[in-house]
């Protein structure tokens, strides 16, 4: 074992003549493959949940911005009121309001057409005091500032009432928030279930590798080194599972996006589009799926490391 000989041998030895750094925890095992399948399924479901929550959150944002940019003035004429002049006055007041971009008054014919679904066709409605609607399109920046308009209408046209759809927007927002919170709870449950599966698999792998752990201890390996080897092993399994599950989720959203384009003009498609928007995940959504996959991979490695460390520290 003299030193000069060592250098000579090193120079002669080809780099790839033999295996040099095989994983200390054997890579392929039935338990390992089962864990990959579990992680793949859980990652797929977690990605679907995350993607679904993002779709709903995006759609909700779109609904609310649309609804909040619309407001309605309803003019309810009394028996002796000239409804046309009341409507014209209300339109004039609304058009002067800084928050209003445009105002469109429904004509008598249009108003009667709105009632057709309930009252049927061919009726003479001229003697009825049918309220008239004025649809306001608000400026994006001034959507919240309708107090002045409300006051002006109350003093000049007391028969007119302003509805800015805030109640609807609040309900839509609450519903969307509830869906997102539900999705987050499901996501957490899936991560917990996955963590439990990883815990079982790690303990199983440790039981199977007891001889390896013992030999490593006897040759002077620290607990941290052994736990690190398990972490590498499980991170690899986690990466495989996360890649499979994540790619399946990406394929699902991409397919759903394409299908929603072909459904777009069918009645059912319009309803789905109203709920989920175009069903197309934005690039940021796909990035979120990548983040989920990365987090699953890291979680798998770190969790198994922690379990192994705790187990080793309990050993005498």
């Amino acid at each position: 074992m003299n030193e000069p000989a060592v250098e000579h041998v090193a120079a002669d030895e080809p780099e790839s003549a033999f295996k040099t750094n095989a994983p200390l925890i054997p890579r392929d095992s039935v338990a390992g493959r089962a864990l990959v399948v579990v992680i793949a399924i859980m990652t797929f479901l977690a990605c679907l949940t995350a993607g679904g929550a993002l779709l709903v959150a995006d759609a909700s944002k779109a609904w609310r911005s649309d609804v909040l940019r619309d407001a309605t003035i309803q003019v309810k004429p009394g028996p002796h009121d000239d409804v046309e002049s009341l409507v014209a006055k209300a339109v004039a007041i609304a058009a002067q309001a800084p928050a209003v971009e445009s105002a469109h008054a429904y004509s008598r014919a249009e108003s009667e057409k709105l009632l057709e679904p309930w009252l049927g066709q061919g009726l003479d409605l001229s003697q009825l005091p049918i309220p008239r609607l004025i649809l306001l399109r608000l400026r994006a920046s001034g959507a919240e500032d309708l107090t002045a308009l409300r006051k002006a209408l109350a003093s000049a046209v007391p028969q007119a009432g302003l509805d800015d759809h805030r109640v609807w927007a609040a309900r839509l927002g609450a519903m969307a928030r509830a869906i997102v919170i539900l999705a987050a709870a499901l996501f957490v449950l899936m991560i917990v279930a996955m963590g439990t599966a990883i815990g079982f698999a790690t303990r199983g792998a440790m039981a199977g590798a007891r001889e390896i752990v013992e030999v490593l201890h006897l040759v002077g390996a620290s607990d941290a080194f052994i736990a690190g080897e398990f972490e590498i092993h499980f991170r690899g399994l986690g990466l495989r599972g996360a890649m499979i599950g994540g790619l399946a989720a990406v394929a699902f959203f991409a397919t759903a996006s394409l299908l929603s384009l072909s459904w777009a003009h069918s009645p059912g498609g319009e309803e789905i589009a109203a709920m989920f928007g175009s069903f197309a995940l934005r690039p940021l959504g796909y990035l979120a799926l990548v983040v989920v996959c990365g987090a699953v991979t890291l979680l798998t490695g770190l969790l198994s490391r922690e379990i192994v460390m705790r187990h080793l520290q309990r050993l005498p």
Partner: protein
Amino acid sequence: MLRFENVGLRYGMGPEVLGDLSFSVEPQSFQFLTGPSGAGKTTLMRLMLLSLRPTRGTIRVFGLDAATLRKNDLTTLRRRIGAVFQDFRLLDHLSTYENVALPLRAMGREEKGYRAEVVELLRWVGLGDRMDAPPPVLSGGEKQRAAIARALIVRPELLLADEPTGNVDPLLARRLLRLFVELHRLGTAVVIATHDLQLMDQFGFARRLTIGGGKLAVFDGSPS
């Protein structure tokens, strides 16, 4: 280096299998641990390697009391001890090279930094052409040599070898023993458990620790 004081060991509530063992292993010493099969040689080797705790008495290793060692200290101490196990304890999924390099890898050393040492040692023990072979395809003698190489690779201060010549022919046994003697001359304290009296007689200078009936007797060797 290694000191046993009134060490006793029993398993559970059974009788003491080893009792009142008091001896020391000095630096750069060479000794055989001998006795009939089942006398407790392997158990005593495990106590020396600190993989078994005594039920009474004190074991001091490199000046530290084994009873009060923390886990990190134990890891550090084991890096100063090389061990050859009777059943080799090679990892079947690793190549011979990887098995021999395992203690260096466990220390966190880079593979490039130790490759030359491992290759040279493997050639020295006659396994230069078996570096890529996993243990299941090695013969008993080859496994023995791989296990010895793994113990020697860290140039330990104390080498514990349990029946290191049990699976090899007499010629190879002598060759392996000479390897241990050379290591001893380089400064390593060596303890070899064996019941091969003929082999021990060839190395008359070595101290003999004879175990029987749970007790230990120490016989100094003749000057070399």
